[in-house]
């Protein structure tokens, strides 16, 4: 899979270098540079053809649109990856906290005994159990 990206990266680098050289020629144009300019223009077309060929190998790759917002703002797209990982970790910790709290509540209620000898028959236990059921329904 990395080979597909390597070939595309190579083609893009060549294309960008060709465009840069084209810009240098154009910045201070001389009549003798016309042949070189024509050659660079044709290299530009062939470069686009080569990049188009690479597209077929990458038809299954999806890029999130939010990355484009980072690039349009002039920001490093690796920051998007970083923020995704941080958000995933934070959500993971949040859900783990909920699960651990519910497990503790269940084990606590199982251990509670009311004066009548029936487990969980007092009003407090019933109220807590109704909250647990609401939590499960929200999941």
């Amino acid at each position: 899979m990395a080979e597909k990206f390597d070939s595309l990266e190579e083609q893009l680098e060549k294309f960008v270098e060709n465009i840069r050289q084209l810009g240098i020629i154009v910045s201070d144009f001389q009549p003798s540079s016309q042949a070189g300019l024509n050659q660079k223009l044709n290299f530009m077309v062939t470069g686009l053809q080569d990049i188009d060929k690479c597209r077929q190998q990458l038809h299954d790759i999806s890029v999130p649109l939010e990355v484009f917002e980072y690039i349009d703002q002039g920001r490093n797209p690796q920051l998007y990856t970083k923020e995704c990982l941080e958000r995933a970790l934070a959500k993971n910790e949040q859900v783990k906290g909920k699960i651990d709290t519910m497990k503790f509540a269940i084990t606590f209620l199982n251990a509670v005994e009311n004066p009548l000898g029936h487990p969980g028959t007092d009003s407090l236990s019933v109220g807590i159990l109704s909250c647990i059921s609401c939590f499960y329904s929200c999941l």
Partner: protein
Amino acid sequence: MGEERAGRAGMMENFSALFGGAEPPPPAAATALGFGPGKPGGAGAGPPPAVAPPQTAEDAARKAAAASGPFYLMRELPGNMELTGSTNLITHYNLEHSYNKFCGKKVKEKLSNFLPDLPGMIDLPGSHDNSSLRSLIEKPPICSSSFNPITGTMLTGFRLHAGPLPEQCRLMHIQPPKKKNKHKHKQSRTQDPVPPETPSDSDHKKKKKKKEEDPERKRKKKEKKKKKNRHSPEHPGVGSSQASSSSSLR
């Protein structure tokens, strides 16, 4: 009253079924007073249950809700899943290396740090010069499906006037100032517009610069050595000059 007591007993029965654990059967006194499991036809039960009215869709829904238990919002519990939020999903999906790479180290903010070899001012927002990727996706340019080479007649349209570009169009050569590295690598700052140069000359110029710097250093070193040696009494040049002057006087 008896119906309420029967309802409460039903709540307890459903609760125990959900969380497991066998409960002792209710005492006979409780059943005599109507605290039994609430089943119709029980010994010593209260008034018989009322006859059910004709069923409708709403009634069916209510019965389904009632069958789930006394808790209105309670649904069937989800089945046991191996992967839950209680496990560390980053280690589960082998993303530790990626996490340390992106979150352990400081990631630089600018786009030019991610693409250092890309020419031009890429750190500016794309909305300034209408070069945003978003606009490319929302309004793709209308073009043909294939790329055809430019013919000779088409190339006549690319005949340019000789001379330098106006300053307004020279922005492409300006790159953001690069920070000096701590190592002693010689990098020239490109704050001013770079003079136009052909790509073949750039390599030669770099080599020439290196060659020029080395002999310059050697010359400076030699000059310093000469200055030091002139002031020292052991310098043969000083003694020989004095001897020659003394011999001429004689």
